[in-house]
């Protein structure tokens, strides 16, 4: 048949389009049919109730009865030899790469370490979470022997009282009570949801600790004390000489003084004593100023209040109910209140004035 010449021409089939269409079809059908079980790999880590997935558990999931004998959980001066599990807890407002690098330097078997983080739900917290997750992914996807046993990231269910995390704002006296109460809640939330049945030690490590001896955990554990605190220092550049120097940073580790008790006795029920402010001279013996000889690293001093920058606690102390009071407890709050509460439960705190950990230097204007 004769076909007239004209604009109408048979369009050639584009095989690329066809094949893409076919592949898409395959995917759509596949995801439809496998919905729920394997289709949400990206989503899964984010959802809170992922683990016992409700729908599937209705049908097949029957969790076994798990038994934990806490009588067999040892807490000894030789944690590595006895394969004791350590929980490292960090309330984090900002992520510092130096913190993570230092954490990776710790010479404790990674398969015994569980990490727990809690971050506020604000812009800053989101940024920190992203940065933290990137680092975690890098580590946990690496060689199996370098992976941590497990890592738990939590987001706070309450708002932090201050919008600014600047050093100057953070350390203002009137802001301290609200800030530390919120910090206590974060610490408690983190602690009581991550403390496992087999945990032997809990190491509290602030997110601005950038340098510790790599044997931190075993060194502190070797003292066999229920609560033990190293001395926290801060490194800075001396503006006059231009040389790096160190100065004490954490003033919450102290021995009580009669003056402080007198102040406490005159206080209203909701007031708290704060350390390190000239308006309130307590004359407590601060561990920050007890450091003398570098070589006597293992010198111990008894303490009545502890700081939380780096703090190793036997899990039994927390299990007995010693928590970080978010309210004035004997006029003390957060870690200092924790030391007091532990004492009421029969556990005493110890400090190591010559054992140093270094905190990140931030500008103080």
């Amino acid at each position, binding site marked *: 048949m004769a076909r007239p010449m004209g604009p109408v021409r048979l369009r050639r089939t584009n095989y690329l389009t066809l094949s893409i269409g076919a592949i898409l079809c395959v995917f759509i059908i596949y995801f439809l049919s496998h919905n729920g079980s*394997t289709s949400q790999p990206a989503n899964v880590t984010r959802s*809170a109730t992922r683990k016992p997935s409700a729908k599937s558990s209705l049908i097949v999931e029957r969790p076994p009865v798990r038994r934990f004998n806490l009588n067999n959980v040892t807490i000894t001066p030789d944690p590595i030899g006895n394969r004791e599990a350590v929980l490292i807890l960090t309330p984090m407002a900002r992520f510092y790469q130096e913190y993570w690098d230092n954490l990776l330097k710790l010479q404790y078997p990674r398969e015994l370490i569980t990490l727990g983080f809690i971050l506020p739900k604000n812009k800053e917290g989101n940024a920190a979470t992203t940065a933290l997750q990137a680092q975690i992914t890098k580590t946990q996807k690496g060689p199996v022997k370098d992976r941590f046993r497990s890592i*738990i990231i939590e987001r706070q269910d309450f708002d932090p009282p201050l919008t600014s995390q600047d050093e100057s704002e953070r350390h203002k006296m009137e802001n301290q009570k609200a800030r530390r109460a919120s910090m206590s809640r974060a610490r408690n939330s983190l602690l009581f949801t991550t403390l496992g049945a087999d945990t032997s030690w809990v190491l509290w490590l602030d997110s601005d600790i950038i340098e510790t001896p790599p044997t931190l955990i075993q060194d502190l554990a070797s003292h066999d004390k229920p609560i033990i605190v190293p001395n926290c220092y801060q490194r800075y550049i001396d503006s006059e000489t231009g040389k790096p120097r160190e100065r004490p940073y954490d003033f919450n580790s102290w021995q009580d003084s009669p003056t402080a008790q007198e102040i406490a006795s005159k206080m209203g029920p909701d007031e708290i004593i704060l350390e390190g402010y000239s308006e309130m001279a307590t004359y407590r013996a601060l561990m920050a100023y007890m450091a003398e000889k570098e070589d006597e690293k293992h010198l111990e001093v008894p303490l009545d209040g502890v700081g939380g920058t780096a703090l190793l606690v036997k899990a039994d102390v927390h299990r007995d109910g010693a928590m970080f009071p978010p309210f004035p407890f004997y006029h003390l709050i957060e870690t200092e209140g924790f030391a007091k509460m532990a004492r009421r439960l029969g556990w005493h705190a110890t400090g190591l004035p010559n054992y140093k950990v270094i905190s990140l230097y931030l500008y103080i204007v």
Partner: protein
Amino acid sequence: MMPRHHSSGFSNGYPRNTNTFDISPHRFQPRASTPAARRRRNLLTRLGIIAVVIVLIWFFIRPGSGTFTSLFSLGLLGSSGDVLMDTVRYYDLSNVQGTARGWEREERILLCVPLRDAEPHLNMMFSHLRNFTYPHHLIDLAFLVSDSKDRTLEVLVEKLEALQASEDPKLPYGEISIIEKDFGQKVNQDVESRHGFAAQASRRKLMAQARNWLLSATLRPYHSWVYWRDVDVETAPFTILEDLMRHNKDVIVPNVWRPLPDWLGGEQPYDLNSWQESETALALADTLDEDAVIVEGYAEYATWRPHLAYLRDPYGDPDMEMEIDGVGGVSILAKARVFRSGVHFPAFSFEKHAETEGFGKVIPIFLILQTHADSGFRWLNEMEAERLAKEAEEKEKQEREKKVKEQFSDTNAQWEQDKTQIQNLAKEAQKEREAESQQGSSQDSKAAADKVGEKSNNNQFRVEA
């Protein structure tokens, strides 16, 4: 208009010239067949489509072939994500706040039961476990077995495994953990000795310790609620979890009663640990020393606190609420965030209370009845009907009557004994303190300072709505 197809000319209008050799350049012949190249391509496409269909069918027939499917479906991402998923968990705690209709939002409950020498009560407890109407897969069970001399642990494991393996898909619970821990408790848990006045303080502190251990080992970031239940509760409504949850309070307890024989009035308030603070009690607290515990329900400490247990109107609204400052531990429903924020059972005396009392909002008329030893925990509003239905229980009741008589007759003697014991204890404590004060005067001054602080602090464990 001129027709295009003339015999005299071409379709484009040129006249046909018969003189010239016509090769007809303006006409196209229809193709006889498709070219070989295109034919080959068509064949390939058809083969491709058939292959895809076969693969699809393969998926449907063998859904279990995970490696192959995941490899096909961007599984590369999935498999590496899997390794990460196993070790890294992300939780947003604001998703697990606890709401009034938790079962619709699939909120998980942690059900905690402390156990000690509780073998006789296990049957009863498991009948309750089977009957809860709250979706079982949303409930995680946690048991703490401590210092038991009987077969509590073995029986518990046996029964739990049977429960998990049961035919009915609605019966098995979520995660089940059994914690074993011996605290070396010396106090006996018999009715007499466990409610003897002298034993109360140290018993309470040990119980608090056990509760803290249980909670700290089993509370997870995905729990929205925590429900504390004593093993010896005999009758409670199956819907108790939903009923309590609907009030949407931070901490809520029902009223606990125990039935008595009719001649004693039918029932008796049992759990006296749920109370509102009274002026008398505050004043009393000031006179006691730091480690003392005020225990409710004993003549030695007349606190004049309004008790939940006595504040019941038999014809009242079961959903009526009242605020309380201390709660009893028989049946507590609390939002998990309460525990996350640090509230716990003080194993030291805090403001003179220990265990669950140091920890409290309540509905007094919401009733559960409890007896300790052997029977009769009931839902009061249904009591009349039940009484008729359960005539078989009458025999038991008579036995109980005897027991109650015995119990009641020697309580006075018991109190006398306790009193002397307490006095002795106090004397000893006095001596110790004197010895201590010689050792370290700083300790004493601290105690003094603490005491002043303590008085004003009494609201700390009051949980605000």
